[in-house]
């Protein structure tokens, strides 16, 4: 039987504003608990929210980048519920009238291009954070209370976990490009909820939509979707249906587990936030934000293909993150060999980042130092292979490649007379091989070169060694 999977996503992205959404407390992550708090973000009696204009600007920026319509007049609403990390007994959000509506992201799937429609993007405040200690006490940290968020809600347009992954990666790249969020999932600045069900394509029977909450990595999100997809199909095959429930991903058990079964719809008693005035956005403001929008990944990819003559694959990888693309472009400005830069970036550098589980922004050396490394290679001062070794040291110690090469004595030996002496010595030690060559065993050449490289600890210029040995053998 054939099943169609239907996936919709709700993504929360924390905005990169300096201050919180309704007060002037710093919105920074990772500070000592409960140090960035004031009467407003703690919801003290009498305190009133005042909307941070930057938050509106960032939300519009995201809306424009995701091809949304921007509402000229919108407002904030209250969503009422009780929770200890919720300071006011309600969360200020947008409900009936979001700032951005009806956008989309085009993704590239194995079946071709596909539009994933975005229903809405709205502004809201983050809540505090509950931490449980060993005794089961709830400890509360309100530093995050009032940190601005945007919530991006898609239509259920994705039909596989793979499509959802592509969508999420693209969305993350766009948000990073336009610098509204750093999208660090491990710091909770990008979180995602999944709505998923499957449809039996023959009978038209649908499984009940399950919500999986708070996925904090793409890997977990994909695994959760795969798990749910399978679970839904299995249940339908047994003639059962799924329950209307909210689940969460259990990292240790590698499965989703039930958080709560929704018997009734939760009533949040939304109503217009009376402490805030309407958000009015005039066309000029939108125009201004649009004009100052940076180049988006799709456009950048096209430009990379055009201007740097890169294969589409390279351009796609390099523009998948703004920081990677910037690193590429800055390096090319100096070293002027786009394909070489691309090869190194996509090969060794991404490889190391992957191994070390690091982001390009955390790299210890600068694009200038990377360009220096390429220069050393291009000028023949070190070989490609030595270059790779130097790069490894750069990753670990963050030193300038020129200094590394000098300190470790890795400079390529290109002195012909010196190399000749070494070649003579090797030939002397391997007389049998020389004889074999002369009898027509050309393979021996490689062995002799290898011996020279070994003797010079890889520093000898291989082309030159090749040339000298050949000359000597032909004598």
């Amino acid at each position, binding site marked *: 039987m054939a099943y169609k999977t239907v996936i919709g996503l709700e993504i929360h992205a924390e905005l990169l504003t300096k201050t919180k959404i309704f007060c002037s407390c710093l919105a920074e992550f990772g500070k000592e608990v409960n140090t960035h708090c004031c*009467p407003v973000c703690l919801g*003290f009696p*009498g*305190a009133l929210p005042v909307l941070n204009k930057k938050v509106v600007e960032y939300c519009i920026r995201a809306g424009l980048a995701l091809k949304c319509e921007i509402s000229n007049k919108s407002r904030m609403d209250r969503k009422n519920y009780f*929770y200890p990390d919720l300071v006011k007994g309600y969360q200020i959000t947008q409900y009936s009238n979001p700032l951005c509506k009806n956008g989309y992201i085009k993704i590239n799937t194995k079946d071709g291009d596909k539009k994933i429609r975005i229903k809405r993007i709205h502004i809201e405040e983050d809540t505090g954070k509950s931490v449980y200690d060993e005794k089961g006490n709830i400890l509360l940290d309100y530093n995050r209370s009032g940190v601005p968020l945007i919530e991006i809600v898609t239509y259920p347009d994705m039909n596989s976990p793979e499509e959802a992954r592509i969508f999420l990666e693209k969305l993350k790249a766009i948000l990073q490009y336009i610098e509204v969020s750093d999208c660090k999932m491990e710091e909770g600045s990008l979180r995602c909820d999944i709505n998923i069900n499957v449809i039996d394509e023959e009978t038209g029977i649908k499984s009940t939509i399950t919500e999986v909450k708070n996925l904090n990595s793409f890997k977990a999100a994909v695994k959760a979707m795969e798990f749910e997809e399978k679970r839904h199909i299995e249940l339908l095959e047994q003639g059962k249906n799924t329950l209307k429930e909210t689940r969460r991903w259990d990292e240790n058990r590698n499965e989703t587990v039930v958080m709560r079964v929704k018997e009734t719809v939760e009533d949040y*008693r939304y*109503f217009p936030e009376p402490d*805030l005035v309407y958000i009015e956005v005039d066309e000029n403001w939108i125009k201004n934000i649009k004009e100052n929008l940076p180049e988006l990944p799709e456009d950048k990819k096209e430009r990379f293909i055009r201007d740097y003559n890169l294969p589409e694959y390279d351009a796609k990888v390099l523009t998948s993150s703004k920081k990677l693309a910037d690193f590429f472009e800055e390096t090319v400005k100096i070293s002027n060999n786009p394909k070489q830069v691309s090869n190194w970036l996509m090969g060794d550098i991404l490889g190391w980042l992957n191994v070390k589980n690091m982001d390009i922004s955390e790299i210890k050396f600068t694009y200038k130092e990377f360009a220096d490394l390429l220069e050393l290679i291009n000028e023949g001062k070190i070989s490609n292979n030595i270059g790779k070794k130097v790069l490894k040291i750069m990753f670990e110690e963050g030193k300038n490649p020129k200094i590394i090469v000098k300190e470790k004595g890795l400079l390529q030996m290109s002195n012909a007379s010196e190399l000749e002496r070494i070649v003579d010595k090797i030939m002397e030690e391997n007389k049998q091989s020389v004889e074999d060559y002369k009898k027509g065993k050309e393979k021996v050449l490689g062995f002799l070169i290898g011996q020279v490289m070994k003797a010079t600890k890889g520093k000898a210029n291989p082309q030159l060694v090749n040339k000298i040995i050949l000359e000597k053998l032909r004598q």
Partner: protein
Amino acid sequence: MDLINLTIHELRDLIRNREVSSEEIVKSFFSRIEEVEDKVGSFITLTKEKALEDARRIDKKIKEDITSLSDLAGIPVGIKDNIVTEGIKTTCGSRILENFIPPYDATVVKKLKLNGAIIVGKTNMDEFAMGSSTENSTFKITKNPWDLNRVPGGSSGGSAAAVSASEVPYALGSSTGGSIRQPAAFCGVVGLKPTYGLVSRYGLVAFASSFDQIGPLTKDVEDCAIVLNSIVGFDKKDSTSVDNDSIDYTKALIKDIRGLKIALPKEYFDNRIDSKIKEKVLDAVKTLEKLGAKIDYVSLPHTEYALATYYTLASSEASSNLAKFDGVRYGKRAKNYNGVEELIVKTRTEGFGDEVKRRIMIGTYFLSSSHYSEYYKKAQKVRTLIIRDFEKVFNEFDVIISPTTPTLPYKIGEKKEKFISMYLSDILTVSANIAGIPAITIPCSYIDDLPVGMQILGKAFGEEDILSVAYTYEKNSNFQRRAPKIKEGIKNGI
């Protein structure tokens, strides 16, 4: 010298002429408080030591430089206990905030302090400003200084009684549906609810955000203008506040009202209003007519829906505004509980009084998704109609005049359990809060030794209009500044 019966401007003049020091003034008022507070019960918290200290500091300043002195410098004030004061307990008349000491000042308090005002204490109120009699305070029942068996009105009853009983020359109150004007009328003082947004709400513990406004309770109209001057102004901490602070409201205190057009809404003089009160207010209107004002009857056709609209919207907002009192961060927390949910439920069960619970429950009901359109949304629409009613009248008239209350102050306990009948005491005042327009009450007569209030409403930001009418009437009548005789040996409490 009997300082306690003087107004702000009279005390100010004495200070400026160096005839009296702030310390002397503050001491006089505290001895008055000691004399009558037991009977009246205006205050929840008194801050005598701090007040005397502040007074001495002001006196020092006065000695150095008298020219830059504000009108309020060195003069005592009482602050309604739902306006937060740094370091001073702010209870909102509720068990749930019994021991809450705010870490910050409300903007109005900050402004008063900058002007050198001396805070003597926090005045009693209906719990979270919900009520019209100050019987709903957790801590005490405030008595009407004119008759200690009667209520002072509410919810700013403590502020009104404190001014009326000369425990302070003026006080701040707050109004959501009439909570400044109604107690001012019951206690025979002047009370003003400014235009919504004219005075910052930052630091006013919210009851219903779209209605709440802070305003002064004073002995006369001039004082009212003086206090208004010092508390108005745009506040970047309150995005609903407006920039209108270049006006000097004392300049509106002129006695010329020739050609002024006064509207009398027939709905405000109907048979729900005590006929003796109507008579007295119409007498006052005649006085204004004699002084050159033009009078005509008008209709505010949606008046009959005002009370329902008010209770629907205000309770809805209140149910949400009061959700923050959950025992997690501050205030009272229930002692024994299992888990978070029980902590919140028990804290709120123990912490809130009946009236507050009643409003939270009806507000929650109105906002629930299955009833939202039926109640909240419909009430919003009626609110718009009520606003239009006023706009129509103000296209032709300068001010609207009516009685402030439908009855004279009633006996303590008389309406305690008949809350619908108590809600009706706001019937003449709620519309101004619904429409956000300014309204003032001034004493215009006495019936059986109980004060009668006349209400003057103006268009949005028309404070100058209503102040000038109020001032003209005050100067041309002899009802203002009658002081109640607080009787000895009265039965205290109920």
